[in-house]
């Protein structure tokens, strides 16, 4: 990769709780080019959201980024203080659309009032100029300009989600993180939001990171795909290849458990057991207790990610079993 917009190296985030150190994110490395999108998938508690918060340097205590770099535009955001991050990185270079974003809008202020805030703080733009800019982005996400003067309760869920996306784009960030952007929306609205994000990616050249547990949605927007399990990348690489020919047993199982619209199945595939407790993850490969192909070496040795058919797979038997 010549000059990636975002370059993440060995990012490791742990939560220091009374019960022990929760290894929520371990040794994550990836790069993202301009206009490229990365999909992050995995079960609840696999560290997807922790990764997102680590990227914008907003891990809440008792959590802390233990190790690693997040290089964006030549700045390593992990080392910055809170004030510096706010000034230089957050919303300006990298912004995030949170899970359940619709509940983020304050009911007592108009949409416009809330949208103008980042412009005021970051660029000192106020008044009509700010209004014009906000309205431009409202138009960009397919909303009416008059939404600017409305209150959140006057908007539907889909409209609120669009407002949030418009706000996150105001400072023209290079990277947009979307954490479960469409959960709790209806299918039709969900498809509209996904279309919007695809269009923004194409027209504005924004790089995106999508986080969701729903692999079906992810397939529509990701160039690259990373499958996370227990705080680690199980498989990372070109999305089309992974979808059509998964190499990690976990990816294979996860894809098989999706119910299909146009195929009759007798039984849905399932992954027996539950994700491990990250205070004390299993020895060796973290997936081995649930893996149907596990052998002795899987219990003893942790597999390093290695290149298999154009992607990185962390499995001792990658390419042999699936």
């Amino acid at each position: 990769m010549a000059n990636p917009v975002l370059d993440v190296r060995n990012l490791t985030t742990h939560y220091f709780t009374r019960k022990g150190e929760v290894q929520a994110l371990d040794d994550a490395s990836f790069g993202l080019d301009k206009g490229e999108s990365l999909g992050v998938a995995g079960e609840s508690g696999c560290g997807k959201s922790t990764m997102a918060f680590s990227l914008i340097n907003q891990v809440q205590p008792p959590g802390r980024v233990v190790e690693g770099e997040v290089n964006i535009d030549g700045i390593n955001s992990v080392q910055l203080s809170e004030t510096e991050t706010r000034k230089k990185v957050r919303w300006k270079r990298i912004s995030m659309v949170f899970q359940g974003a619709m509940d983020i809008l304050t009911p007592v202020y108009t949409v416009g009032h809330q949208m103008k805030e980042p412009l005021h703080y970051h660029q000192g733009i106020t008044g009509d100029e700010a209004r014009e800019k906000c309205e431009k982005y409202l138009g960009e996400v397919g909303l009416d300009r008059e939404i600017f003067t409305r209150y959140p309760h006057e908007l539907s869920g889909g409209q609120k989600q669009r407002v949030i996306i418009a706000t996150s784009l105001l400072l023209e960030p290079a990277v947009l993180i979307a954490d479960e952007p469409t959960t709790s929306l209806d299918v039709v609205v969900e498809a509209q939001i996904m279309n919007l994000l695809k269009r923004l990616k194409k027209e504005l050249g924004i790089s995106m990171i999508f986080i969701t547990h729903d692999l079906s949605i992810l397939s529509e927007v990701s160039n690259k795909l990373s499958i996370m399990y227990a705080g680690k990348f199980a498989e990372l690489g070109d999305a089309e290849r992974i979808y059509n020919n998964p190499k990690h047993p976990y990816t294979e199982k996860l894809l098989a458990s999706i119910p299909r619209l146009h195929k009759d199945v007798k039984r849905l595939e399932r992954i027996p057991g539950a994700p491990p407790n990250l205070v004390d993850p299993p020895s060796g490969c973290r997936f081995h207790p649930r893996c149907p192909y596990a052998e002795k070496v899987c219990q003893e040795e942790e597999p390093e990610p290695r290149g298999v058919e154009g992607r990185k797979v962390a499995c001792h038997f990658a390419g042999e079993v699936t």
Partner: protein
Amino acid sequence: MNAVLEAENLKKYYTMSQSFFGRLLGSQKKYVKAVDEVDFQIPRKNAMAVVGESGCGKTTLGKVVMRLLDATGGKLIMEGKDVTEISGSGELKAYRRTTQMIFQDPFSSMDPRFTAFNTLEEPMDIHDIGGSYEERKKTIMDALEEVQLTPAEEFIDRYPHMLSGGQKQRVAIARALILNPDFIVADEPTSMLDVSVRAELLNLMKDLMNEEDLTYLYITHDISTSRFFSDSISVMYLGKFVEKGEVATVLDNPLHPYSQALLKAVPEPKPEMIEVIKELPIKGEVPDATNVPPGCRFHPRCPYSQDICEKEEPELREVEGREVACHFAGEVP
């Protein structure tokens, strides 16, 4: 037909509150027609899926079937008996023994101060069955085993916060099964859960259908799960069924423009779709239910709408092996 549950012309209207002056001036009462003249039959050991966007009335339908809400009109016949005519708490209690519900959110449908044992004992307490403590405990253990919470001893004394989302929903299923019901209303039972857990629960519910002779009304917005889980499907829009039939028939070749649009919007794992902006034939969101459009209620959003659609309401009629409520069913692409 040997139908366990049969609805005829079933209606549930909510009355809108009126202003004081409105009442003085005698202005007309307004209704939200949450369920409007719905007909269906569910045969024994079958599952009927009801799909649609939020606010289409699918949850209200489930509640009417449970008699958590009283129907405004129409008949609802369960095993030959009209449910809407049940009166008195005794009869209603007897009805609820045969019909149970699984709710959407296991995180809030369970009392945080109840262990799995308490949660499962409560129905037996209410109906005064199950015998002695030992006998009840045995029944509860069996129920936990049945929903694959094994070993049961380990789960029986757990509080909800000690269970994962999937395990909680299993306890909720066990709670619904403990009275040996014949009919279950499942209202979005898997929407709060992860994909792999979702698959596990749907498998379980399907197995129980065969083992326990259960019949389901499966309410969901996740259309792809209905393909696996149910036998028939009804697409609901603003309180009415717009298309219903065998699940494969409807999903493989939907005829109502609304079903077509809904199915088009369902995401599927197809990486080749990445650069393609999906063509969505319908715009906007479900209109306000207090103000249902005249004629076909879908016409303001319908891409094929004609003059007749604004004037005349289409009836459900049989087209290509299923029932569709559209003037142009089978003619539109």
